[in-house]
C-alpha cells in the first residue's frame, strides 16, 4: 500500500478567476502575460525525481506571476488553471532538494514533467530496481518515508512502524521494542538494513533490532510470505530499511537532525555529511553518526527507575558509479546500552507476586540519566561490499557482507566474590558472526521481467558465563527465481525458492560434549496478481507457501527469565513450520477518497510456540512456571484497513484498523500473546500561510487499543490482560524555505491527556504503567554547498 496523502492547492488571492474585470491587478501581477489573449488555459504536469522517475510527494511548485503554490500528493501531479497566454516563471522544490526555476511559454493547455535532483537519489540503480521490484504492487506493502518518517523521528525503529496498519510491537518496558507483523515477530520477520539481512540474536523477546533509525530514508514493510528474495524465514514478512542513496551531484551536502522528547528527557542528534567529487564524477561518499541519550521514563505517577538509554552509531559509505558498472563499500557500527526497570528483576515466585501486587514499582527513583544493573549492552558491526554490472543481457548484482553482534546482559546483582565483582562480568555474553554472499541477475525477455539469484550464509554463535542457547554453526545455501509479467490491466508475479540448511549445536551435558546435527530443505513459493479495474481502482491477491526451520533457541533454550520468573525450555524434536498465507485487497485512489482494505490469513502447520507446562521446575530459588516449545496448527486471520477522505480542501480525515484473530486449530481455542484489535483516527489540516513556509500542518490523532479478550481457556498469566485504552496525540510541523534550503520543524505531544494505561504486548505490564505525556520537538537542517 502506498502512503495515503492528499492534494492541497493553495490559491492565495482569488483574483485570477475573473481576470477580465481586474485588469489593474493583473497588470501588476502578470508582467509577462499578454492580456489580450484568452485566459482559460491550464498548466499541469508531474514532478518527479530525476533518477528514479518516481513521483514526488510534498513537492511544492510556485507560479510567481500568480503567487500560487501547489503541493503535490503521492502522484506528484500539479495543476494551475485560468492562465493566459504568455511566459510564466515556475519555482519548484522538494524537501532535501535545491529549488529549481523554469520559464514556460504557454500558448495552449500545457502539460509538462518537471524533474528534481535529490541528493538522496540512488546512484545505485540496480539496488533501486531490486527494491522497486519488491515494492511492486503484487505485494502487500506499507512504507514510511519523507514526511511520515520525519514525524516518527525520536521513536525507536519498531515504534516508528506502529503507525502502519497490520504492524504492532512487542515491548519490554518503554525502551525495548520489536516489530510484530500480523501477530508474528522475532525469527518470523526478516529485517533488511541497507540491503543486508540483519543477523543478531533476533529470537529474544527483549532483543530490539540493531538498526539506526536515523540512517533510514525509507522503511518498507512487506506483509506476508511473498518477499522470497530475502530468505526462507520471513513467513510474517520483511522490513526493509533503506538509507538515502549516495549523491551524484558535485558538491557537499549535510543534514543535521535533532530531536528532543520530554518523556525521558531524550536528546537525539544525527549528523550526516556526503559528497560527490567535483572532478571524479563517479566517486561519492557519506559519513553519518547518531547519538542518543535518554533518562528514566516518566509514567504519569512515577519515574521508572533505571530505564535510561544510550546509543551511538556511525557509518560510512563510499561508492563508484559508472553507467555500466559500479560498486559500493559500506561499514557501520551500532552500540547501545539500555537500562532495565529495576523492579522487574525478581528472584523467586514470591518476589514476582509481591512486584505484581504492588501498584507502584517497588523501587522508586527521581529522574536520572544513570544506568545501573540490570542493563543490556549490544554492539553490532556490519560491513558490506557490493557491485553491479549492467550488460545487454541484464544486470548482475553481487553482494557480500559480514556482521558481528555482541550482546551482554547484566544481571541486577554484581558478584559477591570481590575479585569476580571487579571484572564486572555480564550474566550472559552472546556473540554471533555472520557472513553473507549473494549474486543476482535481473533481465527482461518480452513481457517477462526476471530476477534469479543465489545466496549463501554461514554463522557461528557462542556464549560465555552462563547457558541460555548453545554455541552453534549454521550454514545455509539458497537459490530463487522471481518472474513478473504485466500488461496495462494485469500484473502477475511468481516466485520460487529453495534453501538447504545445516546446523550443528555444541552442548555440554553433565560434563559431556554432544554435537547434534540438523539438516533442513526449505522450499518457498509465492504468486500474486494485481488487476486494475480502472485507473483509480485496483484489486490484488497474493499467496505464499513457506517453510521455516526451527531456530537454535527453539530447539535448545534453557534458562530462567528474571523479569517474568519463568523458565523457557527448548525442544530438540521440533519440525519445520509450514505456512500458507493468502491475502486479498482493494485499493482506491480517487480525489476525495483513498483506501486500502485487505483481508488475510496465515495458516501455519507445526507452529512453534511456548506452551505452559503443568509441572513447575524446582530450583534453589523455589518453584518456577515452565514454558516449553511445542507445535500446533494455527490460523492468524485479520484485516488491515486504511481509509482517507478529503471532504474539503486541505482537510484529511483518516481511519486505520488492524484487526487480528489468532486461533489454535488443534484445541479450537484462542492463541495467547497476540496483539488485540487496534484503531487509529486522525484529522489533518494542511495549509501554507506564508510564502517561505510550505507543507505546514496541524493534526490530531486518536489511538484506540481494545482489551485482548481472545485468550485461551486455561491461559497461564500472572495478571489478566490490561483494559482497553485510547490515547490522544497532537502533531504540527512545517518546512521553512530560507535561501533555497528547506528546513523542517516538527512538534508533537503524545499521550496528551497523560493517561495511565498498560498494554498487553508489553512484557513489563506486570510491573509498571506505560509512559505518560511526551512533548517532542524535531528539527532537520539540510545544507548543500557547491
Amino acid at each position, binding site marked *: 500500500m502506498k502512503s495515503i496523502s492528499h492534494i492541497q492547492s493553495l490559491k492565495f488571492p482569488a483574483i485570477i478567476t475573473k481576470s477580465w474585470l481586474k485588469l489593474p491587478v493583473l497588470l501588476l501581477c502578470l508582467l509577462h502575460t499578454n492580456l489580450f489573449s484568452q485566459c482559460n488555459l491550464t498548466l499541469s504536469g508531474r514532478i518527479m525525481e530525476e533518477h528514479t522517475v518516481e513521483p514526488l510527494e510534498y513537492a511544492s511548485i510556485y507560479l510567481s506571476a500568480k503567487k500560487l503554490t501547489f503541493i503535490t500528493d503521492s502522484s506528484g501531479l500539479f495543476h494551475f488553471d485560468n492562465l493566459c497566454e504568455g511566459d510564466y516563471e515556475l519555482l519548484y522544490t522538494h524537501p532535501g532538494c535545491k529549488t529549481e526555476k523554469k520559464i514556460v511559454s504557454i500558448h495552449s493547455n500545457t502539460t509538462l514533467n518537471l524533474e528534481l535532483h535529490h541528493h538522496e537519489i540512488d546512484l545505485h540503480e540496480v539496488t533501486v530496481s531490486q527494491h522497486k521490484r519488491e515494492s511492486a504492487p503484487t505485494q502487500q506493502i506499507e512504507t514510511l518515508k519523507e514526511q511520515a518518517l520525519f514525524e516518527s523521528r525520536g521513536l525507536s525503529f519498531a515504534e516508528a512502524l506502529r503507525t502502519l496498519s497490520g504492524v504492532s510491537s512487542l515491548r519490554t518496558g518503554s525502551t525495548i521494542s520489536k516489530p510484530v507483523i500480523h501477530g508474528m515477530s522475532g525469527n518470523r520477520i526478516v529485517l533488511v538494513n541497507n540491503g543486508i539481512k540483519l543477523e543478531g540474536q533476533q529470537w529474544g523477546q527483549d532483543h530490539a533490532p540493531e538498526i539506526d533509525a536515523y540512517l533510514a530514508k525509507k522503511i518498507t514493510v512487506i506483509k506476508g510470505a511473498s518477499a522470497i528474495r530475502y530468505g526462507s524465514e520471513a513467513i510474517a514478512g520483511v522490513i526493509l530499511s533503506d538509507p538515502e542513496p549516495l549523491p551524484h551531484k558535485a558538491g557537499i551536502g549535510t543534514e543535521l537532525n535533532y530531536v528532543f522528547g520530554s518523556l525521558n528527557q531524550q536528546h537525539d542528534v544525527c549528523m550526516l555529511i556526503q559528497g560527490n567529487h567535483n572532478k571524479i564524477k563517479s566517486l561519492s561518499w557519506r559519513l553519518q553518526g547518531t547519538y542518543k541519550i535518554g533518562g528514566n521514563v516518566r509514567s504519569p505517577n512515577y519515574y521508572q527507575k533505571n530505564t535510561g538509554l544510550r546509543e551511538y552509531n556511525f557509518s560510512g559509505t563510499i561508492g563508484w558509479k559508472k553507467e555500466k558498472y559500479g560498486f559500493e563499500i559500506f561499514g557501520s557500527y551500532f552500540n547501545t546500552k539500555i537500562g532495565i526497570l529495576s523492579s522487574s528483576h525478581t528472584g523467586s515466585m514470591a518476589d514476582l507476586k509481591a512486584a505484581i501486587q504492588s501498584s507502584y514499582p517497588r523501587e522508586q527513583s527521581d529522574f536520572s540519566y544513570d544506568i545501573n544493573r540490570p542493563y543490556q549492552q549490544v554492539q553490532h558491526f556490519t560491513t558490506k561490499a557490493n557491485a553491479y554490472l549492467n550488460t545487454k543481457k541484464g544486470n548482475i548484482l553481487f553482494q*557480500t557482507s559480514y556482521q558481528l553482534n555482541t550482546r551482554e546482559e547484566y544481571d541486577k546483582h554484581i558478584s559477591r566474590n570481590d575479585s569476580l565483582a571487579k571484572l564486572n562480568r555480564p550474566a550472559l555474553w552472546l*556473540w554471533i558472526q555472520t*557472513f553473507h554472499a549473494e549474486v543476482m541477475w535481473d533481465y527482461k525477455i518480452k513481457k517477462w521481467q526476471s530476477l534469479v539469484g543465489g545466496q549463501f550464509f*554461514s554463522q557461528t554463535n557462542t556464549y560465555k558465563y552462563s*547457558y541460555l542457547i548453545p554455541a552453534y554453526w549454521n550454514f545455509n545455501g539458497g537459490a530463487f527465481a522471481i518472474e513478473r509479467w504485466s500488461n496495462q490491466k494485469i500484473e502477475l508475479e511468481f516466485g520460487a525458492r529453495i534453501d538447504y540448511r545445516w546446523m550443528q549445536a555444541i552442548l555440554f551435558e553433565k560434563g559431556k560434549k554432544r554435537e547434534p546435527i540438523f539438516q533442513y530443505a526449505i522450499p518457498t513459493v509465492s504468486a500474486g496478481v494485481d488487476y486494475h479495474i480502472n485507473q483509480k481502482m485496483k484489486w490484488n491477491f497474493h499467496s505464499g507457501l513457506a517453510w521455516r526451520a526451527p531456530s537454535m533457541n527453539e530447539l535448545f533454550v534453557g534458562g530462567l527469565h528474571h523479569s517474568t520468573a519463568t523458565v523457557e525450555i527448548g525442544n530438540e524434536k521440533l519440525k519445520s513450520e509450514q505456512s500458507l498465507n493468502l491475502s486479498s485487497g482493494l485499493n482506491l485512489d480517487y480525489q476525495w477518497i483513498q483506501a486500502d482494505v485487505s483481508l488475510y490469513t496465515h495458516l501455519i502447520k507445526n507452529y512453534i510456540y511456548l506452551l505452559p507446562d503443568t509441572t513447575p521446575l524446582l530450583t*534453589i*530459588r523455589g518453584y518456577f512456571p515452565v514454558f516449553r516449545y511445542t507445535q500446533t496448527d494455527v490460523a492468524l486471520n485479520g484485516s488491515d484497513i486504511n481509509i482517507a477522505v478529503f471532504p474539503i480542501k486541505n482537510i484529511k480525515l483518516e481511519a486505520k484498523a488492524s484487526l487480528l484473530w489468532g486461533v489454535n486449530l488443534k484445541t479450537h481455542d484462542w492463541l495467547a500473546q497476540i496483539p488485540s484489535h487496534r484503531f487509529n483516527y486522525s484529522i489533518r489540516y494542511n495549509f501554507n500561510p506564508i510564502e517561505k513556509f510550505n507543507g505546514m500542518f496541524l493534526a490530531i490523532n486518536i489511538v484506540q487499543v481494545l482489551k485482548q479478550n481472545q485468550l485461551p481457556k486455561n491461559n497461564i498469566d500472572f495478571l489478566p490482560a490490561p483494559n482497553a485504552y485510547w490515547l490522544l496525540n497532537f502533531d504540527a510541523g512545517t518546512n521553512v524555505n530560507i535561501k533555497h534550503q528547506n528546513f523542517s520543524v516538527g512538534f508533537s505531544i503524545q499521550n496528551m491527556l497523560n493517561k495511565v494505561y498498560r498494554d498487553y504486548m508489553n512484557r513489563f505490564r506486570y510491573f509498571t504503567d506505560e509512559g505518560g505525556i511526551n512533548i517532542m520537538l524535531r528539527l532537520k537542517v539540510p545544507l548543500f554547498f557547491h
Partner: protein
Amino acid sequence: MKTKKRTIKAFVAVIAGGILFQSCKKEPNPSEANELITSLKVIMTDSANTNNKLVFSFIDLDGDKPNLPTQFDSIVLAPNSTYYATLQLLDESKNPVDTVSNEIIEKANDHLFVYKPNPASLVAVQISDKDSKNLPIGLLSTWRTSGIGKGTTTIVLRHQPDVKNGTEAPGDSDIEVVFPTIIK
C-alpha cells in the same frame, strides 16, 4: 561470457573464504561460568549431645537450568530438643568447590536469612549472628522443638544490597527452599 565466468569464480571464492573464516573455533568454556549457589546444607548439632551431628541438603547442580535437584532431604529432628544450626552454601559446579557462605559472611550487611516454619509451632528458630550494623544475618541459628509434628520449614536468603533493615521485605531472593520437616 568471460565476465560471467569470472563472476562465478569470484562468488565461489568469496563463499570458500567465508567458510574458512567461520571455521576458526569459538567454543564456550564451561569453567568461565558465573558463580551459582548449587547447594544449601543445614548442619545441626544437638545441644544435649554435641557428637550428634545432622546434615540436611538441597543440591541442584545446574542452578536455574532445567535439570532437577539431585538431593533434597527432609529435616528430621527429635522432639523437646535444642539444635545449633549452621548453614553452608556451596557452588559445587566449580572445581575446586566454591564456598559461597564465606562470601556471605564478607557481605553480611547485604544479606539476611529468614526461617519460616509452618505450622509456626513446629519449631522455634532464633538467629544468633549479627552483622556490623547489629542486624541479624542467619548463617547461625538455634532451633528448639517441642512436641512431635509434621510440616515445612522455608529458608530464604534475601539479597538486600544497601537496603537491609532487618526485615524480609527489601531486595530479592537468592535462595528459597521449603524443607519438609518432621519432628519425631
